[in-house]
Every structure is written in C-alpha cells, then in structure tokens.
C-alpha cells in the first residue's frame, strides 16, 4: 500500500480470496472475517502506479497452490523496483519442513503447479520462491 505496510495473520477457515486481499489493500482489514491456516504477510503490494488487483490475484493463486502442496506455508510478498521502468512481484514462501530431500521433491511439484496455473503475464510479473522456514 503506498506509504505503509499491512501485516496480518490468518488461521484455519476458508481460502483467502482476491476480494479479501483487496479489502486489505484499502486498509479495511477488519472486513476479513474468515481465515485459513498459515501466515500471510503482504508488504507494499501494489506500489504507486502498480496494478494491485493483478498482484492480489497472483498471490491468491500462489497461496492456494502452496497450501495444497505444503503444510502451513507462510507467504511474504513485495514489489521490487530496481529500475523505474521495470518492477516485479517477489513472492517468498517459507515452509515449516525439516527434511531437505523430501522438500526438494515437493518443491518440484510446486514449481510445476505454478508454471501450469499462472498466465504468461503473471509469470512474467512474479518471481515465486519457496524455501524451508527456519
């Protein structure tokens, strides 16, 4: 959100929808009445001039896939703008998972699902990173 960050935690319940995220983007977090397990953190989604609703849709898709593939994924996102004319949505997912080898296999499944689910435009906009949480 231009000029500020919003953080929120969601617990068990229903899928977070783009509409829910849109509510957050307009600083009406209180309207998000239901939740899903895991922690979702939005950081500066949709900076000035950015298509916040497009980013929210990407986050919704990524979060749904992450929740299908992993247990209790945490998502953090930010718009990275190194160049005034170019920016990308960095979506970082941390998964509470100990075993390196089995995570590697799950990550391959996740990569494939992301590749199949996001549109060309969304894939170009977002970099989706998943690693194990500390």
């Amino acid at each position, binding site marked *: 959100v231009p000029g500020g960050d919003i953080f929120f935690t969601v617990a068990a319940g229903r899928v977070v929808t783009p509409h829910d995220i849109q509510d957050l983007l307009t600083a009406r977090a209180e309207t998000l009445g239901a939740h899903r397990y895991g922690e979702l953190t939005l950081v500066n989604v949709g900076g000035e001039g950015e298509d916040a609703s497009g980013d929210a849709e990407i986050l919704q898709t990524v979060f749904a896939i992450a929740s299908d593939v992993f247990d209790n994924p945490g998502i953090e996102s930010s718009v990275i703008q190194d160049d005034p004319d170019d920016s990308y949505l960095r979506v970082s997912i941390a998964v509470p998972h100990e075993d*390196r080898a089995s995570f*590697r296999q799950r*990550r391959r499944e996740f*990569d494939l699902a992301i*590749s199949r689910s996001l549109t060309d435009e969304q*894939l170009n906009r977002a970099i*989706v*990173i998943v*690693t194990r949480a*500390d």
Partner: protein
Amino acid sequence: VPTEAVLDPASIATVADNLLRFTDDIAVDEWAECEQARTRSAASRGYYSVLLAVKRRVLALDPDFDFPTRGVHGTVRIAVGRSLGERSFLFQSLRILWDARVHADYDLVGTVSLKSAEDYVDRALDALSGVGGLTDADVRKIAQKILAVKVERERS
C-alpha cells in the same frame, strides 16, 4: 567444451553445497561464526554455477561465441526464456537464483538461513541437470537469442 576451459561449473555447485557443511579441517566455532558468509556464498555460487553452465554449453558449440561484456546476466536469462519458454524450469530457476544472488551478495541486512541456502543449492543442482539435458538444437537457439538480445540492448 572449449579446450582452454578449466572451470567445470558443476564443481561450483559442489563447493556451494559444501559451504553448508562442517568439516574436520575447520574449527567448529570459526565455521559457525561465519554462517551468514557461508550461506550467502552458497546461494550466490549456486546461481553462478547455472549461469556458467549455460555459457559453457554455448561455448562448446562455438568457442568464439561473443557474449556481451555488460549485462550478461540479464541477456542470458532473457535468451533462455525466449528460446525454452518462460514456463521452463531453467528460466524460472535462473530468475529465482538471480534474485537470491542479488540479496546474498549485496544486502547487508537480512539473513539467508542455512535451510534456504540448501534449497537454493538444490534448485541450482536441478537446473544444472536441466542444462545438461539440453539438446544441441536447444543450445543453438539460446545462442541465437543471446545475440538478438545483445543487439536489442545495444540499440536501446
């Protein structure tokens, strides 16, 4: 492979992975105290192993291939995307590892955890397998796209 090539990019990934382990030859305390340097180095080396593996495949077909001296990272990445497709595992991994490498090499704040560094190295190892599995025709396409992107960038 060019006859003068002495660097095996896959060996860089091996080094990256071993940066994340303890060895008998290094004092445990000393090694533990530099964990951030090791995890960041591993993430960075993971990225470079893949970038250099792509360059190596191109040079194997054309030892005189003229890579750009500036902006080679973006040029190779874009060329891989245009030739193999932006949904390809190799292209997406180059983007992810590049992002990790920039943070690991340049940010003084924030951390790269041991687990995430291991996961970046594993991604690099998977991407290296992907590079190894490219056909010569794939590599020629990448080489052509590199030259095209290079020209585009020089004009802009």
